[in-house]
């Protein structure tokens, strides 16, 4: 007994994490990703043309919460979804904290279920709100200004900047150069660039995560089937992979995107996801072929455990390492693909995408419209690449220190 206690139980992932932590730059990268996510979620507090609270003659109004779900103000379902996350997240974090402290439920599994629950709730909230909330596009700033000029007592708390991403500022000739009013200037129709950049993070992040999830799902299922069962299934799936690999991916995405009449961000995600699963499928197939012959799998088969359970709870976790690495790189390349699409004018026309801003900048030849989105794309892509590389290095036993 004494002997056993000397050896700490170390799981594979804690080893990887401890290796990862040694790479300081990658840690900064991970921090940047978390910050970007937070910024994406809480961007209404950073910039929106709706006051959080305002009072006219002592009468308090609080339109902020309801406006978050107003389809007229946020054209994109992505935005409504993020707003739902924003509203729900503090409550849920508090709930989780209570659960952990008082009921001491803190295993990994409950955490995963919890996250899934949060996503579900947010999805439901965004769908329901789309049906329920029907407010016109009220112009609070003008209302407040009019009330002020009428000599009423007015006070209002606004978000940091008072612009929404689709609001056009028609004072002055557009595109306006950066000024105190518009920190990064405006685009050719007079929309505030900084605000569009902030909301663009949402688009990029969702594209990256959702597109990669879609193709991970397809790739893992097909790869696992091929690798585990072998034989005819393997031959057919491998043929399918061979065929899909030959597709000119980017051109196919371009063509399909151009054919969809009312493009939304979700179309772009699905397109990227459906076309680029082959890499993951090959990876997973290889891993499964390797793992299948191992003793623990044979033992599981001998114990009579069902196939689905062996595939998903026994082998898959062991094959997860390379999948995670390719997912991280995949996010970076999905973001790049989306911004190239928007740059070519084949993205979602209503979404404030970074590629779209850059395209306007190219047409107008204005530096602030080029540099801001360009560096944003560069930053996000390099951060994801950095983290991906660090995870790969952390998993490589040859580089372990």
């Amino acid at each position, binding site marked *: 007994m004494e002997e056993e206690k000397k050896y700490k139980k170390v799981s594979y992932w804690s080893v990887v994490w401890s290796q990862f932590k040694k790479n300081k730059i990658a840690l900064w990268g991970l921090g940047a990703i978390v910050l970007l996510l937070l910024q994406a979620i809480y961007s209404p507090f950073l910039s929106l043309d709706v006051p959080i609270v305002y009072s006219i003659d002592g009468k308090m109004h609080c339109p902020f919460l309801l406006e978050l779900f107003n389809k007229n103000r946020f054209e994109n379902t992505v935005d409504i979804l993020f707003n739902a996350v924003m509203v729900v997240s503090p409550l849920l974090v508090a709930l989780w904290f209570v659960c952990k402290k008082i009921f001491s439920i803190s295993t990994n599994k409950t955490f995963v279920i919890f996250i899934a629950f949060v996503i579900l709730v947010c999805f439901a909230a965004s769908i329901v709100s789309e049906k329920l909330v029907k407010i016109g596009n009220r112009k609070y700033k003008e209302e407040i200004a009019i009330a002020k000029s009428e000599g009423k007592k007015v006070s209002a708390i606004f978000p940091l900047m008072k612009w929404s991403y689709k609001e056009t500022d028609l004072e002055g000739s557009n595109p306006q150069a950066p000024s105190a009013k518009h920190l990064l200037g405006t685009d050719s129709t007079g929309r505030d660039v900084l605000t569009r950049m902030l909301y663009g993070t949402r688009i990029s992040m969702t594209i990256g995560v959702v597109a990669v999830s879609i193709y991970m799902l397809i790739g893992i299922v097909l790869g696992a089937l091929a690798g585990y069962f072998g034989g005819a299934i393997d031959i057919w799936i491998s043929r399918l992979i061979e065929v899909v690999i030959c597709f*000119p991916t980017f051109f196919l995405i371009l063509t399909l995107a151009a054919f969809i009449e009312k493009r939304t961000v979700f179309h772009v995600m699905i397109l990227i996801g459906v076309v680029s699963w082959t890499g993951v499928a090959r990876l997973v197939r290889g891993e499964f072929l390797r793992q299948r012959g191992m003793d623990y799998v044979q033992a599981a088969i001998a114990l009579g455990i069902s196939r689905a359970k062996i595939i998903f709870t026994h082998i898959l976790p062991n094959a997860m390492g390379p999948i995670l690495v390719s997912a991280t790189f995949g996010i970076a390349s999905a973001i790049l693909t989306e911004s*190239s699409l928007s740059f070519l004018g084949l993205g979602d026309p209503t979404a404030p995408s970074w590629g779209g801003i850059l395209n306007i900048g190219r047409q107008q030849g204005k530096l602030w419209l080029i540099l801001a989105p360009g560096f944003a794309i560069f930053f996000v892509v390099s951060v994801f*690449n950095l983290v991906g590389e660090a995870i790969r290095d952390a998993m490589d036993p040859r580089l372990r220190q």
Partner: protein
Amino acid sequence: MWTYITKRILWMIPTFFAISLIIFLILNLAPGKPGGTLASGAEGQEASGSSRESYRVFKSQFNLDKPVLFNTRYALSDEQVEKCLNNYANESGKVPMKEVIKSQELLEDYGQYSIPSLIRILKKSEGNQKFRAVVLETLLQNAQRYPINAYAEHLDEKTKQINNEIDSENEKIRTFACAKDASPQEQEKAAKKWYAWYKEHEDRFKYSFGQKIGIFFTDTRFFKYWASLIRFDFGVSHIDKKPVMGKILSKLQYSLCLSVPAVIFAYIISVPLGVFSAVKQNSKFDRICAVILFMLYSLPSFFVATILLYFFSQGGDFLKIFPTGGFQSPSVDSLTTWEKTKDIIWHIILPLICMTYGSFASLSRYARTGMLDVIRSDYVRTARAKGLSEFVVVVKHAMRNGMIPIITLLGTLLPVIIGGSVIIEYIFGIPGMGQLSITSIYNRDYNMIMGIQLISAILVLIGILISDLLYALVDPRISFK
């Protein structure tokens, strides 16, 4: 080795067939209509008769009036046709416009297959003046056959003769026409003519079992496309009716001018860089190199291109050195060969930089890892122990094995070399393959899109084969057995 290559090439055929099938299905089942401006002009029902007619001819020439995979129209029932006619006639005025247009389109597409049903419906519909007018109109339109290969440049005598016959018959059919608001008596008169005509040509519309099978498989878009594809004929462009293959070949030179130097430069820079940083692993040079390459690797090419244009082109605000785009100056014909070369180089420097930096960033990283794998191996140590100079050890011993992965990459670069870069060519206005593909997408030029997709698929297939062959060629440890 030759058996291996033959085997691989034979495998390509079913793979290519599957690729073409999938891309064909995707394109044809995608919503929207082909042909860009031509189709959109004919979209409204109120479009003038002549443009409607030209749209119909367009559809039939490109087989767009046929079903995609299987044709069951030989068994068209009267009910199907009648339903379309009812929708199209829209007597109650309640049918939504979308449905009316759809029915009109469908009636046109049924073409010759709908004639027997139309004749029967014509017989039945006596007394209903308005409906009969629609039936007569449809009959007039569907009974006319189209000349074969109207867009072809050269026709042989036999087809010309057949086309003449078709023309004269169409001429005759056109005399059956009667006005939309004709009286029932006049309609009856026209109907009589139709019955007589139908009796004369009745056996044309009776299909034997063999014919039915033939129609089921062959009178479809996919079969027609493949029938010409076998002869390496990608059809003609929907927009300017020029052959797809010729258009692609004429654009190829521009893309090659850009991508071949780009790849060469990328290799020239990246191999020494990768080798050097691997030999001096963890040195200051290696680290700085790694950071710079990493940043270049993450820089989106369209951003770099836009920046370069802004700072260095005549359209920008700063150094007005380079042109804003294009491949050569408009006045190029008056120049001598030397000046022409200079002019082209002056034009392609900026796009060349954009195309080079991305690939050289990733190539250097490959070169470095490939080199690192071998530099610590025993045979390199042996070479050092023999007292060879460091240069000989690195260049002669280590590099040969270390460069294997980066050489095999050359094969996978083939599609990029020939296909060009869509984004770079779009930004710099270079009239190469990339720009051709994006304009064909904007114009919904189906044949062109299909052609480009299939050619790039073939290039990928060949590229994979080449890189496998190169692997065996440079690495004697790998054999085909």
